């Protein structure tokens, strides 16, 4: 009896568990879960052939290829340059470093519509960058290249912000040990630092990729949305909605949701891997 009472009191030292958890679950259900369930409710009103026909129609298939391809390449581009940016910000000193560091988050803070019209105007034929590219025969506005540029912009902070803290916590003694054992700088980077950064790099890559897949605002202005050529999947959903084809829009949304959930799951696993690596280093 006495033991039980002590145990019970130990758990209830802090109040408000039922209240806060109850409110959390209520709010999440009301705002997120129940509306989200409507997607699956709506899909169930379609027959299987209807569903299959919708998600495999040529414009949708072309949009999957484009969305996946451009998102993947943009995330890859960010993985490379993001690593360099993170490295430079952590390891070197230069003029204006603090401002540069703060500005890295600009794509998070700048509304996507603003980014969209800015990139579209910058890369248009008369734009600052577009007029430099035109003599080279490169056109970014209304092409897949433009979509790639927009997705690179919005994915930029993810890699920098996941790699940066890991790089800061890296124990310099490991590098000193490696070089005193005869490794040159390149070997130290390639065989020691890069493997330790890999989980963070992969996490950042997955985050940037996931964000790019669903991106809408920053892409539509520069993309031109030409059917079969520069229509990303969210634009297809938007098009069906404009024609009040809610069933078709929902079917394509289900495809995107399934992909997002799989990505979310892999990001969680990756983050767990990153953290494990971290605590191993500390221990």
């Amino acid at each position: 009896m006495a033991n039980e009472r002590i145990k019970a009191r130990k758990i209830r030292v802090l109040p408000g568990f039922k209240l806060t958890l109850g409110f959390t679950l209520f709010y999440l259900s009301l705002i997120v879960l129940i509306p989200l369930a409507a997607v699956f409710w709506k899909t169930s009103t379609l027959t299987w052939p209807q569903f299959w026909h919708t998600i495999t129609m040529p414009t949708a298939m072309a949009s999957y290829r484009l969305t996946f391809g451009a998102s993947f390449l943009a995330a890859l581009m960010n993985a490379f340059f993001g690593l360099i940016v993170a490295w430079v910000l952590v390891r070197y000193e230069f003029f204006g470093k603090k401002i540069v560091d703060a500005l890295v988050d600009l794509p998070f803070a700048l509304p996507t519509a603003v980014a969209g019209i800015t990139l579209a105007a910058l890369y248009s034929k008369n734009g600052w960058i577009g007029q430099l590219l035109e003599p080279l025969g490169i056109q970014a506005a209304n092409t897949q290249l433009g979509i790639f540029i927009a997705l690179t912009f919005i994915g930029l902070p993810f890699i920098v912000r996941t790699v940066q803290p890991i790089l800061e916590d890296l124990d310099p003694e490991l590098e000193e040990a490696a070089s005193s054992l005869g490794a040159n700088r390149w070997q130290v980077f390639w065989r020691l630092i890069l493997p330790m950064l890999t989980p963070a790099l992969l996490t950042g890559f997955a985050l940037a990729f996931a964000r790019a897949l669903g991106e809408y605002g920053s892409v539509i202005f520069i993309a031109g949305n030409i059917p079969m050529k520069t229509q990303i999947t969210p634009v297809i959903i938007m098009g069906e909605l404009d024609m009040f084809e809610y069933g078709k829009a929902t079917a394509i949304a289900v495809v995107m949701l399934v992909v997002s959930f799989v990505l979310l799951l892999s990001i969680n696993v990756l983050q767990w891997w990153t953290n494990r690596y971290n605590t191993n280093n500390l221990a």
Partner: protein
Amino acid sequence: MTPAATTCHMPHLVVHRHTTSEPPVVRRVLIGVALVFLSLFLFLPLVFVFTQAFAKGIGFYLETLHDPNAWSAIKLTLLAAGISVPLNCVFGVCAAWAIAKFDFRGKNVLLTLIDLPFSISPVIAGLIYVLVFGAQGWLGLKFPQLADWMTDHDLKIIYASPGIILATIFVTVPFVARELIPLMQAQGRSEEEAARVLGASGWQTFWRVTLPNIKWGLIYGVILCNARAMGEFGAVSVVSGHIRGQTNTIPLHIEALYDDYNFTGAFAVASLLAFLALITLGLKTWVEHKNAALNKMAISK
């Protein structure tokens, strides 16, 4: 394998310096590559917004912002942010309290659910509210009386402000919770438990112990939440119906001006949001600086 063993003959000091940095040439090249990349993708667009905004002079700029449609967009955006930010703030504090201060089963599932709005395309976020509240929506089919009552009283959710507010709440759900959960988990429970044992009530514990501890994290979350709430485009675009002067938010008004080929006007309104983004980044850096200083103090104590 490599003749790198020669480093062994070097004096100790030299080896030390070489291990922690690269040759100056490599350093300069890397800094150069990073700066060129960032200038191209960050500085240039930012400068471009403001130059374009004032391309037709300050008179045109003020005229664009004084337009009644612009005003109504600004008011609607402030309304949507004014409702969604406090709600998500309360939600974030509640979720963080439950998750950080107590142990229960399914915590990881709950964490994933809170993050869910981040991994859903904004267009789908808008779509789900159309499916629930729109014409032939789930609500109308399951509760026809309620739908009739709403039509009788001219209460519209989709293609009206309530839908815009709901979509804004949806996309900003995780911001505050995400900042507070790791922070409160790291701070542990001992301070609150001590306060309770010393006789403080639950509310006193929260106001006097927890809140001062999480103050900066909370502010940080609110700043990010507000930036997203005011800038949301995709989700709001689906539920808005694009009625000028009525259901356009600032980002939707920018799109409308851009589609009218009024580029200078579009950039003039966009400069408001770009300015907001700069303030957000400034505040964020300041809060981070404060936080780091506090951590340093805590460690030195």
